[in-house]
């Protein structure tokens, strides 16, 4: 298999913010995370987290599909992978962007649960225009089994 990617190497992907592009996002991020040196289940975690975060930007950040851009940046660090998502949609208080912080639609509210469970660090920030989400996953940490809900 491939060795780990060099530290600091980054990939940037910019796409219109629409659901039909999520498949490209998953494929591209999957490849980068595999090359970065994650185990298969960890790669799956990263793919789910990024997919969910992008879906939320479409649904909530832009309030629906739009041709406005969504930028995804993946960056290798010696200890893991950093993913940064930048949108230019509406502001939301970062405090609200935690699992269970807002009232859920029926059977909704699973996206943030997945994001926080899949990644080791999740950080939403308001920008002058739009929001930025920074996530980090370290290599080789087994996620605790999800029985403490």
């Amino acid at each position, binding site marked *: 298999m491939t060795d780990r990617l060099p530290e600091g190497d980054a990939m940037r992907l910019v796409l219109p913010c629409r659901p039909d592009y999520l498949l490209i996002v998953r494929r591209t991020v999957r490849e980068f995370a595999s090359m970065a040196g994650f185990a298969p289940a960890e790669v799956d975690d990263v793919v789910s987290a990024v*997919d969910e975060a992008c879906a939320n930007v479409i649904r909530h950040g832009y309030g629906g599909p739009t041709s406005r851009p969504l930028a995804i940046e993946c960056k290798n660090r010696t200890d893991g992978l950093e993913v940064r998502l930048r949108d230019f949609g509406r502001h939301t208080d970062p405090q609200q962007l935690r699992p269970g912080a807002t009232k859920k639609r*029926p059977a909704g509210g699973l996206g943030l649960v997945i994001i926080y469970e*899949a990644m080791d660090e999740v950080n939403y920030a308001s920008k002058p225009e739009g929001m930025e989400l920074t996530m980090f996953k370290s290599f080789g940490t087994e996620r605790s089994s999800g029985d403490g809900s």
Partner: protein
Amino acid sequence: MALKINAREVGSAAVVDVTGEVDMHNSPELRKVLKRLVGAKKPLIVVNMSGLDYIDSSGLATLVECLQGTMKNGTKFSIFGLNPRIKNIFTLARLEQVFRICESESEAVGAAPGGKSEG
């Protein structure tokens, strides 16, 4: 990989084969099929996930809605064929305990009144 959904009858059970990837883009398709089966008050609805490569929170929410619908109907709902990747997503979403997850179609369909296994 494009999503494919195929519904078939096995005894009195409705088995839905879901193949490919379910995401925000196409989960409404799955929702439509499951909603129709819930509305038709099938005694047992079974989702076959053995061809599933990915499912996102909107797909999971669709399954939760279906489960809630069957509970209101007093009917049953099972899923089977979860590969490790899909199991992992159920774990991430903390849904492993919520569904009746079976190992095989025969186990899943066996719960239907009058249902006969295929495999």
